[in-house]
C-alpha cells in the first residue's frame, strides 16, 4: 500500500508539471506582463527596457523553469485587475467555491447511493421507473437553466430562498464560511442543488448499472446459496463491489464539478473562484486566469490521487499487492 501511495504521488507531481507547462505556454502566448505592470501609456523604448529587465526575452524553457520555481514558492504572478498576487486573490475566493462543491458532493453522494442501489434491487418498481425517468430529464437540462428555474420558483415565485450571494459568513481562522450561519445555509441551498443537478443523475445511473452487473455475478449467487439474509447480500456482498468502479469514475466526476461552478456561481452571483474566473476573462487578466487554471488543476489532481488511495483501501487486491 505504501509503495502504491508513493507511486501515485509521483505520478500526480508529473501531471502537475504538465499543467504548469500548459499554463505557462498560454501565458507566454497571450499574456502581456508589461501591460499588467505599467499600463498602456508608456513609450515603446521604456517597455522594451522593462521586457529585458523582466527576462521576457530569455529562451522559452528558462522562462518556464523560472515560472515553475516561482509557482512552487506560491508566486503565480500579479493580478492585473486586483493589483495583488493572484494566489492571494484566489485563496480569498476559494472558500466560497469549496463550500459549494462540498455541499453539492454531499447531496450527490447521499442521494445517489440509496437511489442507485434501490433502482438496481427493484428494477421493475414504479419508484425505480420514476427515478430513472427523472434522471434522464436531469442530465438533459443544462446547469444554468436548472439554476434559473430554481431561482424563478423558490426565490421569485415562492420567495422562500435568496437568489444570489453567499449571505452572512463567519470568519474562521481566515476562512470565510457560510456553513455556520442559518443565512449562509439558506443561500447555499439553491446553488448547491443547481450544481449537483448534472452529476446526481449520472451517479444514480452509474451506481445502478454497476450494482446490477454485480448482482448477476457468481459470488452474489453463491451468497444467496449460502442462505444469507438479503440485507447482507445486497449491502455487504454486492455493494462493496459496486463501490470500486463507482469510486474511480465518481472521483473524476466530482473533480469536474469544479468546472461547473463557473456557470453556477455566475448565475447565483456567488463570489467564488468560478465567478472570479469569468470576471478575469472579461478583464483579460491573463495572469489570474492561468493562476486559476493551475490551482484548479492541482486541486483536481489532488482529488484524483485521494480517490485512488481510497480505492486502494477498499480493494484488497491493490492493498495487499502493496503490502507484500
Amino acid at each position, binding site marked *: 500500500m505504501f509503495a502504491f501511495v508513493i507511486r501515485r504521488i509521483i505520478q500526480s507531481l508529473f501531471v502537475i508539471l504538465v499543467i504548469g507547462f500548459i499554463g505557462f505556454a498560454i501565458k507566454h502566448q497571450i499574456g502581456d506582463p508589461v501591460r499588467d505592470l505599467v499600463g498602456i501609456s508608456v513609450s515603446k523604448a521604456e517597455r522594451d527596457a522593462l521586457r529585458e529587465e523582466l527576462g521576457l526575452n530569455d529562451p522559452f524553457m528558462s522562462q518556464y523553469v523560472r515560472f515553475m520555481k516561482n509557482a512552487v514558492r506560491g508566486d503565480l504572478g500579479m493580478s492585473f485587475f486586483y493589483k495583488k498576487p493572484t494566489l492571494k486573490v484566489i485563496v480569498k475566493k476559494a472558500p466560497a467555491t469549496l463550500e459549494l462543491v462540498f455541499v453539492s458532493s454531499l447531496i450527490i453522494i447521499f442521494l445517489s447511493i440509496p437511489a442507485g442501489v434501490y433502482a438496481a434491487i427493484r428494477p421493475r418498481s414504479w419508484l425505480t421507473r420514476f427515478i430513472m425517468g427523472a434522471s434522464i430529464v436531469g442530465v438533459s437540462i443544462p446547469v444554468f437553466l436548472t439554476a434559473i428555474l430554481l431561482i424563478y420558483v423558490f426565490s421569485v415565485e415562492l420567495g422562500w430562498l435568496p437568489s444570489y450571494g453567499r449571505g452572512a459568513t463567519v470568519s474562521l481562522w481566515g476562512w470565510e464560511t457560510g456553513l455556520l450561519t442559518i443565512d449562509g445555509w439558506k443561500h447555499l441551498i439553491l446553488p448547491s442543488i443547481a450544481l449537483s443537478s448534472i452529476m446526481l443523475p449520472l451517479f444514480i445511473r452509474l451506481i445502478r448499472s454497476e450494482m446490477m452487473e454485480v448482482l448477476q455475478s457468481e*459470488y452474489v449467487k*453463491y451468497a444467496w446459496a449460502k442462505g444469507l439474509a438479503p440485507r447482507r447480500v445486497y449491502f455487504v456482498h454486492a455493494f462493496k*463491489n459496486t463501490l470500486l468502479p463507482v469510486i474511480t469514475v465518481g472521483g473524476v466526476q466530482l473533480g469536474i464539478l469544479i468546472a461547473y461552478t463557473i456557470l453556477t456561481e455566475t448565475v447565483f452571483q456567488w463570489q467564488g473562484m468560478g465567478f472570479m474566473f469569468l470576471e478575469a476573462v472579461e478583464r483579460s487578466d491573463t495572469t489570474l486566469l492561468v493562476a486559476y487554471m493551475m490551482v484548479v488543476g492541482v486541486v483536481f489532481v489532488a482529488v484524483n490521487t485521494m480517490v485512488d488511495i481510497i480505492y486502494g483501501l477498499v480493494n484488497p487486491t491493490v492493498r495487499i499487492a502493496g503490502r507484500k
Partner: protein
Amino acid sequence: MDHLLEIQNLEVKFRLRSGEVTAINDVSFFLDQGERVGLVGESGAGKSVTGFAIIKLISKPGFISGGKVLFEGRDIAGLSIEEVRNIRGNRISMIFQDPMMTLNPVLSIGTQMTETILAHKNVSKAEAQAIALDKLKKVHIPSPEKRLDQYPHEFSGGMRQRIVIAIALLTDPAVIIADEPTTALDVTIQAEIMDLLSELCESEKMALILITHDLGVVSQVTDRIIVMYAGRIVEQGLTRDVVSNPRHPYTKGLIAALPESQQRGKALSQIPGTMPSLTDMPQGCSFHPRCELVMPICKEKVPELIELDNKNALVACHALAKGGAS
C-alpha cells in the same frame, strides 16, 4: 422407506421474450442419507438448473412451474423465501464450478466463512471462527489460522476450491450439491479435489449430488447415475450397471466417447450433432435427430421412463420399451 431428498415431477420454465420455454421437464429422483448420486449429461442438459431448483434458487426469468422437492418432510418448492433460507447453505450446501468467481473478491476468507455460520447458528463470533478453523483443517489448508484474514486472490484455484468445500461443511449439511466442482481447475489437481470431496462426504456422512458432464468422474465417485438430456432424465441406474451396460442410446454414446473406451488408431467416437436449444425442441423424443435407432414413433411420442430389470434401473426409450416391459 422415506428418502432424504425426493424430487417429484420437477418442472422449470424460463420466461423469454419469445414465450415460455421448459428447461426441466418431469424430473423425478431421490437421494438417500449419505448416498452419492451423479447427474450427468452434455452442457445444456439442465443439470445446473435442476441443482439450483433443489434450493429454490432459479434466477429470473426462470421459475419452478411444477413438481415437488421433498426434503426432511417438507416441500422446498412450496416454502417461503425465509424458510428456504434456513435450508440453503445450512442443511443443503452448494459448491459452484469456478472457485475464481464464487468467492467474493473484497471479503476476507474469515468473513465469508463466519457469515455463513452466523446466518444459521446461534453462536458467538469466536465460536464461529473456531468452527471455520476446524473445517479449513478438514480440507487440508496449511496453517489455517493465518488464512482467515486473507483474501481470495491470495490463493490458487485449487486452494480456493478447498475453501469453498470448507464453507460447504461449516453447518454439517445433510446434502452437498457440487456443480462441476473440478471443471474449472487445473487438470493436475482435479483428481485431488474430487478425492477430497468424496472422502469428506464419507467421513461426515453427507449425501452428494455430483453434477458433471464428465462420466469418467461420476463413475469413480458415485453410487448411482442419473443421465439427463434436454431437460429430461433419460436413464437412471446403479453406477456400475450404467457404466458397464448402458441402455439408452444417448448414454451409450456418452460412454463410447470416454477417453478410456476409445480404441487406439480409431477416430474419436462422438455423438453426432448437438443438444437442441430450448426454443427449438424436437417433437417426441428430443434425442431423435441424433439417434441411430430412431423409429417413426420417436418423432411423435415422448418416451416414458420405465423400469427395466429392477426398480433401480430406469430408461426412457421407445426402442427399449418394446422389448422390455410391454
